[in-house]
């Protein structure tokens, strides 16, 4: 399975009268692009704004971020099962607009007051200390500002937001059809080099089986009480993995993160040079019982064994007891002779003296720390706030206060910033013991 990813860099976005991509400039006609969205009764209002890296601006109400892509060759289309039919993807040629992203900034109150299904949104500062911790601050952001109809149920809100952002991104990528890319990267697993170790990526994924949306979907199907699933990394590049767009949280990946999964990219870079990348196991985590956690750990190890993996890069997404599933997986692999390295963020509390992790197994003797999620952060006020409302709710609990988006903020953790927690080792952050 061979996928060519053709790059079309974007250095400038102009909201103008035409829709075209030329010399790394994206010119957009807002009315034309958003005309379709206004026919969706779930969307009260939609508009666009451009925000630049380094600008003293704060984007609010962020639910998801997506990179514009389109398949120009090979079967299927990006976001299979969502924008089109459930046709296998990962082959052929896909165009991407790099250096920019579409941000879905939606106002949505939600019908659920608390718990794991409650709507949440995040912010992104494009300058200052907030920008330093999020990889998204380096991209030109085309913000899709949405106001949803009142009283929408969570799954309707999700579908409306997701369709709106994906459709918009697709239309942008479509402007590159027939044009010559600045670079083409080829992604192909091919045959293994017998002299190199075979490495599998085990991607633990917290999902909620009982929610309208489980938190993560494969070809548009929410993953619920699933056992280990083998996914070709190229499928990610074509948008086979998608997220719940009512919950923008710093320790969850956005669609953009799945399209640009740093561990997948890293393993591909080393593929057939230092190792054989044999694929990705999507491991559903956060089973409700210890029994369930043990079963998924053993089941995942079995699949890694079946792939003849000598080593496994283990990572996860989520928080809380789902980490027990991850650690039991590390243990199961090590006991079965599969060498592991765990890539994880750590906790540690405000001062870094609380426990860095929630669960320990002695077999997890090789861990990459991507930094602490708990450190406090002071954000100065922005000159410009971009979002559907001038007030934001940083904390989500029954009765939590609204505060002006254009104020200074004291955050007691990094998760309120989209991309604020480095879940997959994209960046340079880590912690050391003193």
């Amino acid at each position, binding site marked *: 399975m061979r996928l060519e990813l053709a790059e079309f860099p974007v250095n400038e976005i102009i909201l103008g009268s035409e829709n075209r991509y030329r010399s790394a400039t994206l010119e957009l006609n807002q009315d034309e692009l958003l005309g379709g969205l206004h026919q969706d009764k779930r969307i009260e209002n939609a508009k666009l704004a451009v925000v630049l890296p380094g600008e003293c601006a704060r984007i609010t109400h962020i639910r998801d971020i997506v990179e514009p892509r389109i398949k120009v060759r090979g079967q299927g289309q990006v976001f299979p099962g969502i924008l089109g039919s459930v046709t296998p993807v990962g082959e052929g040629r896909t165009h991407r607009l790099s250096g920019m992203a579409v941000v879905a900034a939606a106002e949505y109150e939600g019908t659920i*007051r*608390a718990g794991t299904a409650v709507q949440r949104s995040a912010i992104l500062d494009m300058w200052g200390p907030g920008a330093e911790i999020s990889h998204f601050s380096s991209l030109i952001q085309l913000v899709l500002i949405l106001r949803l109809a009142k009283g929408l149920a969570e799954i309707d809100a999700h579908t409306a937001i997701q369709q709106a952002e994906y459709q918009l991104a697709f239309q942008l990528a479509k402007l590159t059809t027939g044009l010559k890319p600045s670079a083409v990267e080829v992604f192909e697993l091919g045959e293994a080099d017998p002299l190199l170790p075979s490495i599998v990526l085990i991607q633990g994924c917290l999902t909620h089986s009982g929610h309208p949306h489980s938190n993560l979907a494969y070809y548009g199907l929410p993953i619920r009480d699933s056992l280990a699933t083998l996914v070709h990394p190229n499928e990610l590049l074509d948008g086979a993995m998608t997220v719940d767009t009512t919950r923008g949280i710093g320790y969850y990946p956005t669609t953009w993160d799945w399209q640009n999964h*740093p561990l997948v990219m890293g393993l591909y870079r080393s593929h057939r040079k230092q190792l054989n990348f044999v694929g990705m196991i999507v491991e559903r985590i956060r089973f409700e019982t210890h029994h369930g956690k043990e079963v998924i750990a053993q089941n995942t190890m079995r699949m890694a064994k079946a792939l003849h993996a000598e080593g496994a890069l283990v990572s996860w997404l989520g928080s809380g*007891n789902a980490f027990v599933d991850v650690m039991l997986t590390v243990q199961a692999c090590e006991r079965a002779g599969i060498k592991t390295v765990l890539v994880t963020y750590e906790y*540690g509390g405000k001062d*870094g003296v609380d426990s860095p992790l929630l669960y320990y197994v002695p077999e997890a003797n*090789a*861990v990459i720390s991507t930094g602490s999620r708990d450190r406090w952060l002071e954000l100065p006020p922005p000159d410009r706030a971009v979002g559907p409302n001038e007030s934001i709710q940083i904390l989500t609990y029954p009765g939590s206060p609204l505060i002006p988006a254009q104020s200074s903020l004291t955050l007691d953790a990094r998760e309120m910033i989209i991309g604020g927690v480095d879940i997959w080792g994209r960046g340079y952050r880590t912690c*050391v013991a003193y």
Partner: protein
Amino acid sequence: MFNLIHVLNQFFAGVGGEDKADIPVGIKPGPIGAARGLQEQFGDRARVVATLFFGDNYFHQYPKEALAAALNEARQLQPHVIVAGPAFGSGRYGLACVELCEMFAQALSVPCVTAMHMENPAVGTYRDYHNPKVYLLPTAETAAGMTSALTALAKFACRLGSGANMGSAHDEGYVSRGIRQPVLAQRPGVDRGIDMLLAKCKNEPFLTELPMEAWDQTTPAPAISDLKKATIAVITTSGVVPWGNPDEFRTFRNTYWRKYSIAGVQSMEPGRWEAVHGGYDVSFMNQNPHFGVPLDALRTLEVQRIIAKLHPFYYVVPGNQGAPSVIRRIGQEIANDLLKEGVDASLLVST
């Protein structure tokens, strides 16, 4: 050249053996006993201005007096650095070294270094203090390792005396105090991870960035001898609170607890209570708050006289993402309140 005080027990100060273990805190100018060895290691880089000593038993019988006397002596000498031990495998001596270093670092803001064997129980106490001014170096288990321990202490004390910015536990060679500091690595996490995995696959050495720890074990209180005479309370981390969340609990990282009256209440009616918690799907709890506060069952036990009485308040903190140190403090506060209220036992309902 800088000045330091060397702190030793009576034995290593050369004052006497176990028969002198009851002597109070004393001080002699210049190096005596093992401090002479330390001074030799320093040469003219540092001066041991005094040797402070104490009886092992005395320190543990009169810790307050011992610490006050030691502070009084040390304050006058204005040392740049304080060295305590090495204590090797001796638990009493090790603990005295850690407690003295902690006190000196707090009261005099002086950097302190001690040394002992990694299995000395005082290493745990040192870690629990998380004091960035106190350092502990690993040693052999017995005094056979004296020379190498003094060499290491002297070298480390010189680093402290130079006023250098001290690096991580790994870089400087001291035992980590469990303080995790954010830093930027040379390379992205992905590249570090792949390299570590390749090294591991080739059986080459690698260094984890996050060593495993072990959680504290809690010894349960003795069982209730007669349940019929017992007052029982409920503590819940489910986040079940009166509807409307009157105390503004957050769905995660709460830092306080509350107790709510259930006096005269026979059951937890849906609509009167709600779960404020970010870590589980609360819909079932809102439909039946008894899953968090099993009042129906407890009232039945009360009527059947299986328990004497249900405490008229239940205690709650939404437990989601609570930092262990915060939750430990909350637990202690709730336990104190339960004791004060004469509660004999508590049902702990988690989610």
